[in-house]
């Protein structure tokens, strides 16, 4: 579904991503793990065109994504849950969710999807009229995921969904990610919490200073002594 080849990202003179190649198949969840600063988030930001890659190609369902205007990605079915959540702080939760559906105009289906999202996150229903900036970090993360789902994506990009959250909240968020995946959503998950990421995903890529160094099925990566030593704190 998504084929990335030779993707390069640089900030000034520094190469954050050095020509990486990977792919995501339809219906699978793929984890991109690695230490802080390995280039995971830069990769996602380049895929979602929050920054312009220095080179490479990103093919999605046979289309070259880098040729599209950045605001056109959502209509192609790609949604990013950005690092740090990025909710619209002075809009209500409900308005944030409707912003997720901004590129759509099928009113009836939007209303159905809203019900679905509020079903996944009952907490958001309670907070529907609350301004998003006053929500807790976990609630904001729920809102950001819900908002991305409101665009009815085929490919969901998740950037560090566990970051800065209490363990119980991380558990809740990952339950929902699992539920969304089980409905057949294709997911690319970037996560510093490697254990968690490998437990929910089918395949994984390990990034190290801008390059992909190891790739395998997630359960094999979980068992790999080198990965365990480097990323699982053993």
């Amino acid at each position, binding site marked *: 579904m998504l084929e990335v080849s030779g993707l390069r990202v640089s900030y000034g003179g520094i190469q954050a991503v050095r020509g990486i190649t990977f792919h995501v198949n339809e219906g699978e969840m793929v984890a991109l793990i690695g230490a802080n600063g390995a280039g995971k988030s830069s990769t996602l930001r380049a895929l*979602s*065109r*929050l920054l312009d890659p220095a080179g490479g190609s990103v093919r999605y369902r046979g289309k070259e994504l880098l040729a599209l*205007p*950045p*605001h*056109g*990605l*959502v*209509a192609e079915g790609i*949604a*990013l849950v*950005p690092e740090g959540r*990025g*909710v*619209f*702080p*002075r*809009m209500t939760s409900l*308005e944030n969710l*409707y*912003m*997720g559906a*901004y*590129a759509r105009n099928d009113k009836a289906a939007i209303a159905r999807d809203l019900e679905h999202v509020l079903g996944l996150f009952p907490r958001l229903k309670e907070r529907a009229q609350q301004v998003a900036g006053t929500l807790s970090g976990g609630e904001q993360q729920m809102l950001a995921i819900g*908002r991305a789902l409101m*665009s009815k994506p085929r490919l969901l990009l998740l950037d560090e969904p566990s970051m800065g959250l209490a363990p119980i909240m991380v558990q809740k968020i990952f339950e929902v990610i699992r539920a969304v995946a089980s409905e057949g959503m294709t997911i690319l998950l970037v996560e510093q919490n490697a254990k968690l990421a490998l437990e929910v995903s089918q395949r994984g890529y390990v990034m190290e200073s801008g390059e992909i160094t190891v790739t395998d099925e997630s359960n094999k990566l979980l068992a790999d002594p080198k990965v365990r030593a480097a990323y699982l704190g053993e």
Partner: protein
Amino acid sequence: MDTLLQQLINGLTLGAVYALVALGYTMVYGIIGLINFAHGEVVMIGTMVAFTVIVSLAGSGMPPLLILGIGLLVAVLACMILGWALERVAYRPLRHAPRLTPLITAIGMSIVLQNVAMIIWGRNYITFPPMINKEIFEVGGASFTNVQVAIVCLAALVMLGLTYLVQRTRIGMAMRATAQNPHVALLMGVDINRVIAMAFIIGSALGALAGCMVGSYYEIAHYQMGFMLGLKAFTAAVLGGIGNMAGAMAGGLLLGIIEALGAGYIGDLTGDFLGSHYQDIFAFVVLIIVLMFRPSGLFGERTGDRA
């Protein structure tokens, strides 16, 4: 206390105009963090265009109110195009430049527009032909004209409409989202360039309307009139909290009233040492006080680091 009532009425009229112009500053600032110092000149061009249209139609035998309406409409359309062009030509190429660059460009555009207006409409004061038969109403020792009533009512109507647009419509949602987080708005599929252009177009339309109000209220126009008006409206926007639309409306009204009261009482307070022609100092005293004690303004929630 007829002076008090009279000055409150005058202040309300003036404040309505300031509020409309302040909205133009605040909408653009809220979205791209630029203080568009050429906005005052857009207002001036609006007045001038309305003037030209009204004068050229004055002998045509059309009803005066229709002529006024056409003048207003043409001015609004002209300024919408001007606002769009300003953004497209002067600011968009500088979207990723350091913040000071577009600010200086804005000052440059203001000078350019002033000079263009001077070439077209001349250096002298222009008398705005009165299109409305002035009627004077008296209430409790204070008097006001039908022109003042029209200005306040029209401004209130337009501000209500704008609030609806921003709070309830799709483009309004996109504008608010862009103001709060442009990167994420982009992810949601918002065409940021279009939203920015809309902020300039809407702001300029409001400015043109305000320009026509000033023209019909004072019945004169001048190619430099946009400078002081723009500066005062900017003060109003800062007073309300720049970037905040409700703040711009409240700041405009408040500044108008402060200025009118100041002008009304300055003679009494200084033993006639300073007269009402010192009216202009009040806006700047307010600006200095706000910047010293509450730089984020009355309604401002964020203290931005934007230039």
